[in-house]
């Protein structure tokens, strides 16, 4: 075991906690068998989890790098690996390798700026890492706005954390919305892109969008409509990552390799790429 | 993956004697998915079952493996147990460690090792089980009987008697079938009409029974309990509900030279006709190929003489759609054509006739009013030769005749011979036969009477040639017992023509997706155990459409078919076997391989719209399995090249998991 040393060879991870977030999303806490964090990472980076015999799959690391005890992954059920993980219980071992990809430029571009995070559905997972990182180093950043929407109240990820922690922070505003009216919901109803336009943010800030491709597209259009410059908008394409190391030949969008050049992209960079992401 | 509980049964010492049950329970603990494993003396006992129920609750089990006796023994028991514990009953798998392990192996180590492997296979399978729910479908409480001969009549009467509605579809203008054409019936010699016509009247008068005469089935859709049938009522140009059957029109009709089908063309009828006096319904029918009014628009006499005003030259074929829960096929038989049997001079001489023609000749209502007269000259025949097995048991001449035995000929020929000798003692009667087969109640006695009491001359041997010469028929034959050639100058030769299924049966079978054998007889669901059911659920067989039969056999089969129908119609809902095939339409090529091998016609095709990856939509043909019809054999799953078709409960992945577990 000791002499194996290749980027493709994983470590053992142990699932220590499984939290049911929504009907199809669970959040898994993972450490090494000796109880440590598997590796250090930066906000926006991903890790390859795998179940021997089932396969490998890439997930963004949901927990903040500032969490030095463990990593968390919010995983939506949508394939054989995720199906398997969803029926796993605490104590189950999996394998983990990473971190992969370029992180969000939290320490340079983001520093000192107002930040706007926009997420849809499970798209909050990659952003949670950044949001919590920025909350942890609260004084390094300006005002933080978070717009988050999902199909219904039950489909909102990290709801407790959002309500109990984020929205109570100073200088952090959380705007939640759901697609359709629902009993017991007195918040905003409507799609995220429209909500963003309604809210009409001041454009002197950095925006980060994550969610389903359509939602990203319309939100980006919405931001441009209200005067945002694409050079200030970031998103992540981590769904396109496969081997994690930029060699297997799948992740390229044009000449850019998501595994190496991304997954975090500035929207003006994306604009230059052929439309096949 | 499931949360599996493993329960190893000792079956007293039946299992525990050769299998270390604790070791099995222990070994299975580390199998994937297993969260609980135990053993017990009698798993099938109340205490054992309670143990399972408790474990399901305590360990939150989603799957159960019982290592015990054969699933043929207690699978049902443990499924009920699972259901009682709140699990889907199909989340149970049995590892057969008694019949297929402890009882056949002597050595404890061997037995234990194998039991563990069988247990692992069951665990591997149950991990891939999915809850199954038997499909339910409602039952239309009405039966359709296709064919109005004695088989159809008896079936219909029996079903109606149980209180269900029945429709009979008969292609002829009247019900009655072949039996109505017969004179006497063997072996009791009671007159066919005397026993049949009361039944026909019963049918007519039974308010649960509707008769669609002069009609045929043109389309069948649906499945057991829910057939949608289209019936074509041929235009008879007579308003059925108005016609009184008085017969005035028949007398006046100028077209009087139409060969009379009922008498097999031995006499004539009119263009408007009633097949016979006791016809049901007793309604006239205009033969459109003969009626000058219909053909040329001239005549109209029948309309003028009909006081009831029943004639309607403008009548059109009518299509009726009706729903049925069960369909009984009673399409009966016909004698085969004698065209290919020129050696008997059938086409050359009017005095060579078939046995059915002989029936009409001797029938009081027949063309000669019951007097046995030669068709050619109306003279009384003094020497009659009966030839048996004409086209039956024709192994060497399959293109001419049939390989099978027509079963009824031996007995009716004995009857004909006996009646002839009885009525006309001066007549010499020869019967040429291959074998005389009399395996029925009082049948052999009957035949012996013909020979012994009535002096019928039975000769084992075949007739080689019949040559008309003058007013005689020269019969050349061989006597196999005396081993000599015979030459007989006969006045009349009667051919016992083989019988074959009615020609309407083949297209009907296609409509019903009911299978047929190479002779076009309907096949039964099981030749021994389910003789009156077709493999297609909800389709039943009555009478000679399934194989040659005499009247008593037909009637008893008709009753049996009726009781099966009654059993079906008595249900409000049909609960299917949930282990049925199903097709993944995304993978399906629509190639029909599966439908080709389905013995039940459970697979149909539909054009479905699919969203293509490039966001366009395309229509593609895909297979659909009707779970109410599928019996779960799995033939289709292997015929399917793309693997789209799979069998619930015995899925590809499940069986492969078992293979893997056994071989690891």
């Amino acid at each position: 075991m000791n002499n194996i040393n290749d980027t493709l060879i994983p470590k053992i991870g142990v699932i220590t906690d499984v939290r049911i977030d929504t009907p199809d999303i669970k959040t898994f806490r993972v450490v090494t068998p000796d109880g440590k964090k598997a590796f250090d990472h930066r906000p926006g980076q991903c890790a390859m989890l795998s179940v021997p015999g089932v396969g490998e799959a890439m997930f963004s690391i949901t927990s903040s790098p500032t969490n030095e005890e463990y990593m968390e992954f919010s995983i939506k059920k949508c394939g054989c690996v995720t199906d398997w993980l969803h029926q796993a219980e605490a104590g189950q071992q999996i394998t983990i390798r990473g971190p992969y990809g370029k992180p969000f430029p939290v320490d340079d571009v983001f520093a000192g700026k107002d930040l706007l995070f926009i997420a849809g559905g499970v798209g909050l997972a990659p952003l949670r890492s950044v949001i919590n990182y920025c909350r942890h180093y609260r004084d390094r950043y300006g005002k933080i706005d978070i717009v988050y929407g999902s199909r219904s109240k039950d489909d909102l990820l990290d709801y407790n954390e959002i309500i109990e922690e984020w929205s109570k922070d100073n200088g952090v505003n959380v705007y939640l919305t759901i697609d359709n009216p629902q009993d017991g919901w007195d918040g905003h109803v409507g799609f995220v892109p429209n909500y963003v336009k309604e809210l009409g943010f001041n454009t002197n800030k950095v925006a980060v969008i994550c969610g389903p491709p359509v939602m990203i597209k319309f939100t980006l259009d919405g931001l441009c409509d209200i005067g945002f410059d694409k050079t200030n908008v970031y998103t992540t394409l981590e769904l396109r990552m496969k081997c994690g190391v930029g060699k297997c030949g799948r992740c390229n969008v044009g000449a850019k390799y998501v595994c190496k050049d991304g997954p975090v992209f500035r929207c003006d960079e994306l604009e230059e790429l052929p439309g096949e992401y | 993956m499931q949360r599996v509980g493993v329960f190893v049964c000792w079956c007293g010492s039946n299992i525990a004697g050769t299998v270390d049950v604790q070791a099995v329970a222990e070994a299975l603990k580390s199998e994937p998915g297993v969260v609980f494993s135990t053993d017990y003396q009698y798993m099938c006992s109340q205490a054992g079952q309670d143990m399972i129920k408790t474990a399901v609750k305590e360990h939150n089990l989603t799957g159960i493996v019982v290592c015990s006796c054969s699933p043929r023994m207690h699978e049902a028991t443990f499924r009920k147990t699972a259901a009682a514990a709140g699990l889907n009953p199909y989340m149970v798998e049995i590892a057969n460690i008694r019949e297929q392990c402890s009882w056949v192996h002597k050595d404890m180590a061997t037995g234990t090792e194998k039991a563990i492997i069988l247990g692992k296979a069951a665990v591997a399978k149950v991990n891939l089980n999915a809850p199954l729910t038997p499909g339910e479908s409602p039952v239309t409480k009405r039966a359709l009987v296709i064919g109005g001969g004695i088989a159809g009549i008896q079936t219909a009467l029996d079903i109606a008697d149980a209180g269900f509605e029945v429709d009979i579809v008969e292609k002829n203008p009247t019900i009655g079938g072949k039996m109505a054409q017969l004179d006497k019936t063997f072996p009791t010699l009671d007159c066919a009409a005397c026993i049949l016509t009361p039944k026909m009247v019963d049918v007519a008068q039974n308010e649960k029974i509707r008769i669609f005469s002069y009609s045929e089935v043109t389309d069948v859709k649906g499945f057991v309990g829910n057939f949608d049938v289209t019936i074509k009522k041929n235009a008879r140009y007579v308003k059925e509900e108005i016609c009184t059957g008085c017969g005035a029109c028949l007398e006046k009709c100028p077209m009087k030279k139409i060969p009379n089908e009922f008498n097999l063309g031995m006499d004539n009828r009119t263009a408007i006709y009633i097949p016979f006096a006791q016809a049901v319904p007793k309604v006239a029918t205009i033969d459109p190929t003969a009626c000058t009014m219909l053909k040329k628009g001239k005549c109209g006499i029948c309309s003028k003489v009909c006081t009831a005003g029943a004639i309607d030259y403008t009548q059109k074929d009518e299509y009726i759609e009706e729903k049925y829960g069960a369909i009984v096929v009673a399409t009966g038989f016909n004698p085969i054509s004698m065209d290919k049997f020129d050696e008997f001079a059938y086409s050359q001489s009017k005095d060579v006739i078939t046995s059915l023609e002989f029936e009409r000749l001797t029938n009081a209502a027949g063309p000669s009013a019951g007097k046995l007269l030669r068709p050619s000259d109306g003279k009384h025949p003094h020497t009659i030769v009966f030839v048996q097995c004409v086209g039956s048991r024709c192994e060497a001449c399959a293109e001419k005749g049939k390989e099978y035995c027509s079963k009824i000929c031996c007995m009716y020929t004995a009857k004909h011979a006996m009646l002839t000798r009885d009525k006309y003692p001066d007549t010499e009667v020869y019967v040429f036969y291959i074998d005389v087969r009399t395996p029925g109640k009082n049948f052999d006695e009957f035949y012996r009477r013909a020979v012994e009491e009535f002096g019928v001359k039975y000769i084992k041997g075949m007739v080689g040639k019949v040559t008309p010469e003058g007013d005689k028929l020269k019969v050349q034959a061989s006597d196999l017992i005396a081993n000599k050639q015979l030459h007989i100058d006969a006045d009349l030769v009667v051919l016992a023509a083989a019988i074959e299924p009615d020609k309407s049966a083949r297209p009907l079978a296609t409509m019903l997706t009911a299978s047929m054998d190479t002779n076009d007889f309907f096949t039964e669901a099981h030749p021994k155990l389910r003789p009156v059911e077709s493999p297609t659920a909800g389709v039943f067989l009555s009478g000679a459409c399934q194989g040659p039969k005499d009247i008593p056999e037909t009637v008893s089969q008709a009753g049996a078919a009726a009781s099966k129908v009654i059993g079906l119609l008595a249900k409000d809902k049909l609960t299917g076997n949930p282990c049925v095939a199903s097709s993944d339409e995304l993978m399906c090529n629509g190639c029909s391989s599966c439908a080709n091998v389905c013995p039940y016609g459970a697979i149909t095709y539909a054009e479905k719209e699919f969203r293509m990856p490039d966001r366009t939509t395309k229509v593609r043909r895909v297979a659909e399995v009707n779970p109410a019809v599928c019996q779960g054999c799995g033939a289709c799953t292997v015929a399917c090249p793309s693997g789209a078709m799979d069998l619930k409960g015995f899925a590809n992945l499940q069986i492969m998991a078992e293979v893997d577990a056994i071989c690891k």
Partner: protein
Amino acid sequence: MQVNEYKPLIVAFCCNWCSYAGADLAGNNRLNYPADVKIIRVPCSCRVNPMFILRAFQRGADGVIICGCHPGDCHYTSGNYYARRRMTALFSMLDYLGIERERTRLEWVSAAEGAKFAATMNDFVQQVTALGENKRLEDLRCKK
């Protein structure tokens, strides 16, 4: 008995209605056959996909036998006829590829033929034992 005697691994696919019942009857009558035979229950012999057979060989089986109702007795009327054609085609192909034909067999065993079941299995095990390990259709990754 020798200690390190070669034990073949035999996978038997038995149809639920006849052969599986025949195997049960062999049990009821305490008719011995080697424990090397492991039975997989299938509804009908026509459920046996050639892929299952190759899979068994891949995973280490030394012989595969398919048992079904006698021709004419299929619970589903025709399943065993299809099985017969399929297995004929497959076995012939395996033979063509030089894989020992003695490793595969199709037998008809009725529910009443417990003795035939046991005898067939005894015979088949003997036949496969004589061939020794399956080398021509093995997957080395699956070797223990």
